[in-house]
């Protein structure tokens, strides 16, 4: 298959070839393989990446329901990040839910010329009068950093003026190389200003936080359901259906469960340094992963009762879905999938696909770092570049409230046994001969589809229509195409059902008009030379 890579790269100009070749690799686990990641996107080749603001406001802060998130900038950025990620949220205890709202200062030309500080202040004042929020987060867009509006000073002013918690995030779009920079900035802000500001104990014996779960389509709810059923107390969720009020006392948890490693590992690491909170990479997508995850968590707490309960819940939940699982597995196995999503999902969903007997032939991250591909052990080797240096790396000191849940011996033991504080990356779980591509662009998407002929392509909205107009099933893994949840036991079945529904839709068999399918005379225009995937599907169905 090595020729695939060569052929795809052949189309590029020399410079592009040079920079793209290191982002594409064919998995060969006998070798130590290095992939280039988190480098600047090449201009003009239709990257799928978003910006720093999208990572900070869109991903991490957007789902918070008890916070008025105010975009300081022209109208577009606020509008485009309004309700597009399908983060679900219930109103919290005091009834507030800001998730349905979009707030913007809608900067105009005079604000750019004369500065937007005053408009920002007035907007906060109006927002405060109207909604009386307890917390306000300000997110800046490109022009703000350039014209020098001091949003942090405005935040300080708002705190003293209105007695609210107000945190400013300098997440101008041009910072970093992708959304990833925005995640880091948001993580820093939460760590500096929110985490550890409420010392009330959380009334549960086994306390965990769920990190990097954004509750797309209700994923977080299913995950929480399982955790609570076993007997864990979930102190805070970062940040799907999340509240800063909960995050304020997240340091009261004993263990951080990290679902999306890319977007939230900073918080996990910083909380370990400051409060001694251990963290564990988990995956609630895919049935085998869930079982492993739940057993790892119970092992961490080392309590026999919770271990027994874990097994009982696993048994009960699996029994409840086994019929559906077998039904969909029968229809799905043998298919091939390609996955190209943001930071961690491309790895997570391979586990779920494996449950259904679907192999993943291509996987890539839009904005992952090398550690997301190769595992955390490569972090010391990652060279800092101009772009990563621009993002503040907080130096975290031990907090007075630091407490170690495990003895040093036990901690060491668990590092090996359950991979505490470690993430092994995606490549390790992939088959030899499959492809890993970082920051896949439009051209490469088409080329790989042509060569690898996947039956299902998981992506975001921007690639979706190219795929499905090609007769290949497309499922969005950013927003689930209005479906979900896909996490947990129940979500697994919804996922299986969605794929089956998509692959077996009768319309795929009607793509060609009948008079075009069977030429009347050999001279007439007829069948295209290459059968489309939909037609192959049709054949499979008949067989």
């Amino acid at each position: 298959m090595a020729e695939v890579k060569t052929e795809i790269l052949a189309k590029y100009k020399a410079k592009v070839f040079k920079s793209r070749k290191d982002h594409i690799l064919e998995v060969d686990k006998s070798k130590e393989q290095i992939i280039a990641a988190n480098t600047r996107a090449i201009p003009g080749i239709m990257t799928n990446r978003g910006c720093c603001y999208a990572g900070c406001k869109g991903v991490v802060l957007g789902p918070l329901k008890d916070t008025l998130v105010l975009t300081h900038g022209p109208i577009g950025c606020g509008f485009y990040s309004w309700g597009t990620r399908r983060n679900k949220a219930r109103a919290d205890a005091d009834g507030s839910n800001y998730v349905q709202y979009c707030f913007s200062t809608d900067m105009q030309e005079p604000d750019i010329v004369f500065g937007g500080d005053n408009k920002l202040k007035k907007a906060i004042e109006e927002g405060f009068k109207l909604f009386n929020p307890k917390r306000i987060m300000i997110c800046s867009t490109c022009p703000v950093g350039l014209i020098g509006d001091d949003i942090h000073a405005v935040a300080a002013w708002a705190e003293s003026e209105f007695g609210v918690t107000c945190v400013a995030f300098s997440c101008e779009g041009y910072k970093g190389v992708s959304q990833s920079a925005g995640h880091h900035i948001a993580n820093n802000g939460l760590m500096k200003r929110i985490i550890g500001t409420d010392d009330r104990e959380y009334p549960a014996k086994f306390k965990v936080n769920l990190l990097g779960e954004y509750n797309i389509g209700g994923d977080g709810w299913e995950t929480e359901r399982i955790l609570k059923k076993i007997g864990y107390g979930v102190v805070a969720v970062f940040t799907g259906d999340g509240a800063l009020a909960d995050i304020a006392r997240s340091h009261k948890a004993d263990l951080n469960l990290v679902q999306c490693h890319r977007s939230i590992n900073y918080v996990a690491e910083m909380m370990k340094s400051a409060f001694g909170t251990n963290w564990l990479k988990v995956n609630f997508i895919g049935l085998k992963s869930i079982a492993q995850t739940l057993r790892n968590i119970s092992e961490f707490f080392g309590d026999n009762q919770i271990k027994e309960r874990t097994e009982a819940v696993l048994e009960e939940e699996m029994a409840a879905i086994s019929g559906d699982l077998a039904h969909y597995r029968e229809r799905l196995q043998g298919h091939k999938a390609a996955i190209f999503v943001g930071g961690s999902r491309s790895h997570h969903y391979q586990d779920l696909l494996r449950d259904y007997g679907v192999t993943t032939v291509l996987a890539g991250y839009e904005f992952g770092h090398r550690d997301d591909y190769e595992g955390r052990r490569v972090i010391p080797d990652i060279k800092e570049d101009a772009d990563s240096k621009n993002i503040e790396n907080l130096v975290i000191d031990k907090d007075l409230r630091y407490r170690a849940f495990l003895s040093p011996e036990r901690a060491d033991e668990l590092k090996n046994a359950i991979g505490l504080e470690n993430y092994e990356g995606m490549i390790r779980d992939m088959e030899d001969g499959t492809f890993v591509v970082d920051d896949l662009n439009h051209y490469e998407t088409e080329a790989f589809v042509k060569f690898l002929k996947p039956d299902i392509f998981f992506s975001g909205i921007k690639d979706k229509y190219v795929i499905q107009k090609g007769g290949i099933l497309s499922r969005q893994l950013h927003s689930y195409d209005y479906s979900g949840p896909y996490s947990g036991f129940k979500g697994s079945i919804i996922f299986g059902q969605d794929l089956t529904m998509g692959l077996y839709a009768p319309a795929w068999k009607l793509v060609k008009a009948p008079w075009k399918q069977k030429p009347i005379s050999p001279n007439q225009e007829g069948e295209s030379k290459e059968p489309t995937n939909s037609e192959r599907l049709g054949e499979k169905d008949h067989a």
Partner: protein
Amino acid sequence: MGQRLISLTENPCKMCFPMGVVMAFYGLAKAMNLLHGSQGCGTYIRRHMATHFNEPIDIATSSLSEEGAVFGGEKNLVKGLKNLIKLYKPEIIGVSTTCLAETIGEDLPGSLRKFEAENLGLGVKLIPVNAPGYGGTHFEGYWHGLKAILAGLDLDPRPHGGLNVIVGPVSPADVRYLKDLLNQIVPNHTLFPDISDNLDGAFNPVYDRLPQKGTAVSAIEKMAGASATIELSLFAPPDESPGLYLEKNFGVKLIKLAPPVGLTLGDAFFSALRELGFAIPARVLEERGRLMDAMADSHKYAALGRAGVFGDPDFVHSISSLAAENGLPTLLAATGSKSSAFRLGVQRDLKNFAILPLDGDPVAADSADFALIEELCDKLKVNLLIGSSEGRRLAQKKGLPLVRRSFPIHDHVGGQRLTTFGYAASSLLLDQMVNKLISADEESFRERLKLEHFRPADGASLPAGRADFGDHGNRSDFEDQGPNFLAPKTGVSQVGDLQKWIPTSPSSTKEPNLAPWGLPDGAALAKANLETIHPCFNLEAARDLARIHLPIASGCNVSCAYCRRDNDCPNESRPGVTSKLLSPQKALERFLAAKKLLPNLKVVGFAGPGESLNSPGALFETIGLIRKVDDKTALCLSTNGLALPFYASELGRLGLRHLTVTVNAVSLEAAKKIYAWADYFGKRFTGEEAAKLILENQIAGVKAAKALGLKVKVNTVLIRGVNDHEAPLIAKKMSELGADLFNLMPHLPVSGTPLGHLKAPDHETIRNLRYLCGAHLPQMTHCQQCRADAAGLLGRDLAFDDQNGLAGADSPGELSGAGQDELEKTPGFFKIALVSKGGVMVDSHFGQAQRVYEYLSNGESLRLLGIREVGLKGGGCDCAMKKGAKSQDRPKGFIEKLVFDLRDVDAVVALRIGESPKELFKKYGIKCFTTMDSLERAARAAAKRLLGDQTVSYGAQDGANDLALA
């Protein structure tokens, strides 16, 4: 319109400038877009366009990073262009700036000239477009893009006699309509731009990265030689109008027309084509005939509508025109663009469109966000929304139907296929709008009928525990509403339904003062003053205005765990207690008796002891009887809210202006602990079902009451450990529903009730919670938790005996059992007359007395015997007189008469008393005291002094004044 946000945009109704530019270029053949700036702009715009058009959207970006932002972005721009050209081979590229490139001051045209000079023979046309995100909305961006295309190409001015048709940012399906039409009737034309295929392509396994269809560059270059341009936009900013550009620079005649939506605008379009010499196909006339026929079909319903249209200026204007042609008035036309032409022009048109007198002036608003749109929808009573899917939140929140058109449609598939152009599409759209109105009407008409026509006949008191209309033979009419109505198990949808029909049903929006009795004297008891006359709603009023509760309601339809109703108890002072129940006739008598005794009686209330709306027959009959003899006293009602959604409208019609709803919970958990069961439509619900039902109906009821303009007070019985944590939530929820006042009442544990064992919440808790609740609603802090037969001033209730009228007191130290006459004869009891204006303090000079309060006291116990309205202003006193009041103003013999009237009392207490009345009283052996103290304390003190206790002096301890013998 209320206080507007100036600096904060809440839920925008517009997108950014570059979005429009990109769309303009998508209508060109073999064109690509490159956004010079941060890559997020391209990604966000691609994402939004892809979701609407359901097509792949490719927008390249120069991916500027911090380095580019600091040192300039030309390097990235050049790289981006080179890669784009190599990979996509476009013929034309729209290179647009963004906020970032504009703010750092990139010289885009210069960079592109340099690039072209260095890369000769690339065969690609580069069009520079200055597109800062803050340069306007996507609407202006679109026109700016089109003009930039014309300005950036070498146009060929050689005349060829063709026609240009320039189209605004509309759906690909609309463009396709124009394209088919022009292909058929105008041989030489350029449709600019043409997104019909590029943004709505056919299923095609072979994906072409470069959009192949659309207006060719060669065709655009010929636009300067056309004989005329039709520009289908009235609101394109003149500076950005491509048609005007062609007219100014190349003399191509410009015909500005609105988009061809509906009859008037469609006719204008086809007439213009006809005048230009093109034959209109017979098909068009047939379609016009069908639209006319569609209008004939729907004109009967259209006038029910009050449309709110939002979106781009031309869209809003043309849709309003279509609606108006069939008698569907647009009350609100809103655009996110800043356009005074729209604001003024459309405002004028909306008024001209109206064929019937409108309730309220229509509004055209520019620079609108959804916060403003929501506010105006409320104000203008909009009942139909037409616009993009961004209106879905508003539609959901307000229960309004939304007809989706324009860009973006993000929650439905097929946004690219929605169409408005031409007579055929207009017919479909009109049908859709009218059908929404028909559905809304159809789904609610049974309820309206019931509320309007099937309320119980006057005087028909029905057995408690049953819905009243059951006996009127029309019950079956409601049963076929199905379980949705009678057995509300699926709570959410039911509340939705209730909420939907109550506020919007025309009967309930009727002004309550159209009631047969009208409001007292028209404006005499002006609405503005209503607030001040109700002692519960107004602390000031509570000082000197009295109310009476008429105990007519016996049974209750809800079982509350803290409540025990007592219908024959004269002693306990708490809600749910009365000495006896009254029939409507008896209630009228008591009302009249009270009125005689209490000249300050302003409010008659119904507060139990059961649920007032559980005996609607008795209630409405009583109200009817009272209204026949009195139309001044305000009506008030206290309810648990279960039946409120069904009677709110009737109550409003009867002229009720104040309402108290007891809402003890908003969560099911708390509600389950408080409510054991609920009787609803003849069926008993228990447990969670009951709780859900009660909560939902309370919400729907309060909403309905507020829709009628009633003042609503919410009572919450605060029960330790049951609902104390959710009091602020209740206040918040009620505030959202529009309630006016919140009254947190401490739970009075009553033995024999399920919650009787609990301790009453302490004062501190109540105070703290009131503080928290105060964030949402004003707090009533002077509640006395009255009995169901209370009468008089708050906290100084009189008790009635139906034989003797006023019979006893219900205040601390009351004397129960003994009749008045008996007491008067009891040694040690004295009758004390106290002069007071406000009813709280001894606060008047005797000579200026307006009211005299007569108490019976032995120095400990106390009973108010009555209040004597002296009613005359003016001085009678020869000591310090009120400024301006001269002694000659007083009626002759006023003092003498007053003293004579008071001759049977034992003592008189006033703030000051003149020499002459003192002398007169002396003749009767009546002692006069002066003080400034509360009536009760002063009365007790006077009694003690009469008993010979000279040491009465409590001033020092509790801040009262000494009583002095005058």
